[in-house]
């Protein structure tokens, strides 16, 4: 077990190492001199040179990379010139906001998609199934931009139920969460449907029924646990999609989360911040995947933690 954990940690480190390289290269390739950007437009040559020296920009790239890596290990994510703040604090605060809508969105998505997917899979070929499949297909075909705009048009401008943007009460979270969860919801519906269909054809389901367990219990208790497995597997990777979607959604709903921060950082070419965001996102993704794997081993004992 210890060996496996170590192996896993090593793999994780390799991934993070790769990500830091990508992030570093991106920043070095980006146009504009970071030193110039740190200073006001009126800065003199001398000031710029001093700043370059201070920021270590005169060192060879390799040295710079390891300096950067060293800082990272110390927990120093660098300084955002656009926000005039430490990246670490900035990202953390934004991350919490993104986590809020993402978690709520995912929960809503699960609450809707799990029964829907299961019923569609069980009642394959019926009207319920067709409706669920149509919903799922449309959901996946909808561009998040378009979805958000429609939602605003309907719920804020039309019905005046929900605030259009910003933070504050729970009402502010409804639309961003729904938008974040929407494509996930349709994906889970679809996957659950097809895995339910697969599972119901398995011999062990027939075997369970042959032991006199009622259909309902078999579906809800036994088949469900098997059918959910593929969804658990993909949910780690789905997090990436959710985060990507949140860039657009947070922008539209003016939700001060990581996605919006990313867009701001990119559009203001605050590459130090972009770099840190990439690393943080990678860490989150890796951790979530790890979590998913652990979760998976709990549900499915066949796969050992690897």
């Amino acid at each position, binding site marked *: 077990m210890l060996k496996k954990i170590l192996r896993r940690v090593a793999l994780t480190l390799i991934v993070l190492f790769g990500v830091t390289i990508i992030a570093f290269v991106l920043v070095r390739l980006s146009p504009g001199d970071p030193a110039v950007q740190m200073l006001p437009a009126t800065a003199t040559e001398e000031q710029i040179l001093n700043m370059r020296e201070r920021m270590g920009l005169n060192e060879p790239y390799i040295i710079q990379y390891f300096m950067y890596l060293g800082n990272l290990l110390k927990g120093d994510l660098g300084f955002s010139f656009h926000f005039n703040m430490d990246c670490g604090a900035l990202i953390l605060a934004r991350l919490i906001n993104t986590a809020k809508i993402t978690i709520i969105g995912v929960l809503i998505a699960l609450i809707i998609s799990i029964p829907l997917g299961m019923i569609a899979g069980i009642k394959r070929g019926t009207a319920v199934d067709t409706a669920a499949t149509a919903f799922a297909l449309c959901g996946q075909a909808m561009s998040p931009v378009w979805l958000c705009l429609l939602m605003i048009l309907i719920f804020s401008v039309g019905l005046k139920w929900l605030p259009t943007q910003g933070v504050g009460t729970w009402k502010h979270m409804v639309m961003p969460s729904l938008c974040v969860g929407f494509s996930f919801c349709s994906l889970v519906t679809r996957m659950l449907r097809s895995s339910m269909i697969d599972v119901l054809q398995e*011999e062990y389901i027939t075997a369970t029924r*042959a032991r006199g367990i009622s259909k309902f219990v078999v579906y809800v208790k036994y088949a469900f646990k*098997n059918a959910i497995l593929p969804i658990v597997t993909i949910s780690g990777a789905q997090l990436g999609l959710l985060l990507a979607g949140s860039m657009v959604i947070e922008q539209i709903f003016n939700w001060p989360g990581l996605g919006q921060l990313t867009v701001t950082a990119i559009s203001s070419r605050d590459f130090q911040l972009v770099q840190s965001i990439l690393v943080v996102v990678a860490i989150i993704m890796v951790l979530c995947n790890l979590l998913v794997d652990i979760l998976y081993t709990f549900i499915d004992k066949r796969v050992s933690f690897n």
Partner: protein
Amino acid sequence: MIERELVMDELLKISNLSVEYRSGGKVAKAVNNLNLTIKKGQAMGLVGESGAGKTTTALSVMGLLPENIGMITEGDITYNGESLIQMKEKQKNNIRGKKISMVFANPLSSLNPVFTIGHQITMVLRKHKNLSEKDAKKEAAEILKLVGIPDYRMGDYPHQFSGGMRQRVGIAAALACSPELLIADEPTTALDVTIQAQILELMKDLQKNLNSSLLMITHNLGIIAELCQTVAVMYGGEVVEYGSVQEVFEHPSHWYTIGLLNAVPKLAGERQRLISIPGNVANAQMLPEGCKFHPRCSRCIEKCKAKRPDMICLNEKHYVQCWEAGGRNGEQ
């Protein structure tokens, strides 16, 4: 033996059963006008090639044909005189696992991989015996011990067991409530010879001890000879020959049964050239008219092509469905 058979009453009676699978516009007639009777305490073997409809018959009895695909088009199945087909789902649930149990062919796929084997056995006990979790566990441990699995392994998952052990778990789950009828669908096909021997010994013992009836489905004629008193040979969804094991194996009367026996290499005696049955295994989607076996039969006559032969009684322990059989039996 004859006397015993006579006093035994009918436990399960399948009469005139026809089952079809319909999917994608295709119809497979898996079982055709099948008649079968299993008496209390009796062990019956059901043999036949792949696709003969053996599993379908078993599933029909259990009421577990795949929904919307497999359906019973004709006939009836009665259990202790009660029609299983007309029975409500709830009632059926009370019979399944308690009165009639089933062991499946593939020990790996017939156990749910994400539940412990302990759970898979206790769930039967809790359902049918209304036991508390604790009592059920205790009893499950007893049953597992009976099939030779120590109780400390109850918390393990199916993949942690070998094929033979899994099949024992399957048998334990089936026998948990001491059913009156056990249907075993090729319980040893996926297992090694030595493991198969273990399972067969186990089943023999259990059946003796519990005095339950057994419907043993298999390809392997040897298993039937060892385990059963009566045998039914299936071809193309029909029972073509039926009788006591010794009768049928020593005096096979249907050309299909004869072919089958000739095609199997023997473990002893002269090594003779095998005689294979010509043609292809019957395809449930296009069964021929008349005797289902006639396209492959070397003794086929016009009558065979046109009309399905009736089941004729050769003696009280031997029935066969062949136009020629009566005469041939006379020859012997």
